[in-house]
């Protein structure tokens, strides 16, 4: 794979690749601590869909960490599927939130509605939006990682 590369170039490539995975880990950690802040400190109860999104982001905080020491080229193989499924839930949640999917289709219990907007940061940033952003950023970084460094 590295045929033709000098040792220096190889080192730089691995360095840049490491930074990409490190950034993914930062995003996953921010999502982990952020979501815990919303539920445990601010007391916003997570609805069913929030739980599904948590299920797919929390392991990423651990997997990226493992994949960084030493840098694992195949880290994309086992982290990308989680991120893609998580993004699916995030998009579904966002569509529910913004009313594109009718309320009758929502899988949440009455007392803890997934369509009730609990929090709007700076007037427009909602929790599903943060979730979509985190998952998309992770997916993008992983794709770059695979394409640029380990095709």
């Amino acid at each position, binding site marked *: 794979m590295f045929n033709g590369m000098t040792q220096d170039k190889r080192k730089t490539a691995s360095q840049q690749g*490491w930074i990409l995975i*490190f950034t993914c*880990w*930062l995003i996953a*950690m*921010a999502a982990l*601590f952020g979501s*815990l*802040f919303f539920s*445990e*400190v*601010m*007391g916003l109860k997570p609805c069913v869909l929030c739980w599904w999104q948590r299920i797919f982001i929390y392991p990423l905080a651990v997997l990226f*960490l493992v994949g*960084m*020491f030493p840098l694992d080229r195949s880290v994309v193989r086992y982290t990308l599927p989680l991120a893609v499924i998580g993004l699916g839930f995030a998009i579904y949640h966002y569509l529910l939130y913004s009313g594109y999917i009718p309320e009758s289709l929502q899988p949440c219990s009455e*007392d803890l509605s997934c369509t009730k907007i609990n929090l709007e940061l700076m007037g427009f940033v909602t929790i599903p939006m943060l979730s979509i952003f985190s998952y998309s950023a992770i997916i993008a970084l992983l794709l770059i990682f695979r394409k640029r460094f380990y095709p």
Partner: protein
Amino acid sequence: MKKNIIVVATAILFVVLFVAAATLYNNKKNSDLSSASLEKIDSMQRDYSPKMGPLDAKVTIVEFFDPACGTCSVFYPFVKKLMNENPGRVNLVLRYLPLHQNSDVIVSIFEAARLQNRFWETLELAYKTRDAWIEHHVARPEKFWVQLGVLDLNMQQLEADMQSTEIARRIKQDIQDAQYLKVSKTPGFFVNGKPLVHFGSQQLQQLVESEITENY
């Protein structure tokens, strides 16, 4: 290795930031809560609210409760103990905050029993028989109904009174006041209008004692 240090430092930073933000947030919330409830003293108790203990006591505990709430049932004897330990100085005002499903029906049974002067007995019976009429956090009024036999109530009258619009109005008003006072969990305590910020029996006792020292 340098990368090790970066990652460990970042992880520590996350934890420190989380704890700092949580502390800041809680402090701000607590100060907001204290000032808010002092401004809103009018909605602290209503003339219809059930009261226990001497009316001229200078320390008043206001408790927002839910009959199906386990912690409320544990706190009830504790609050009574606080009143007994300070005879004549502390009284209790109850407010309804039926958060569990069907809890409001149990509350209307209390209110209907109140018309037959059996409010406190009914409340104590409800706490005592919790396991018999609460299933998976849902109140089953029909199962509480059969427990009422021991109280010698006029059941027909009780059933009729439960439907009264006045009772429904009171429950609605209490829930509204709870929202206004930012009480979202039960039991929610205020002592002379001051909220119990850090929940716990020890903390409640301290708050009551400090109000006693201040007023007597």
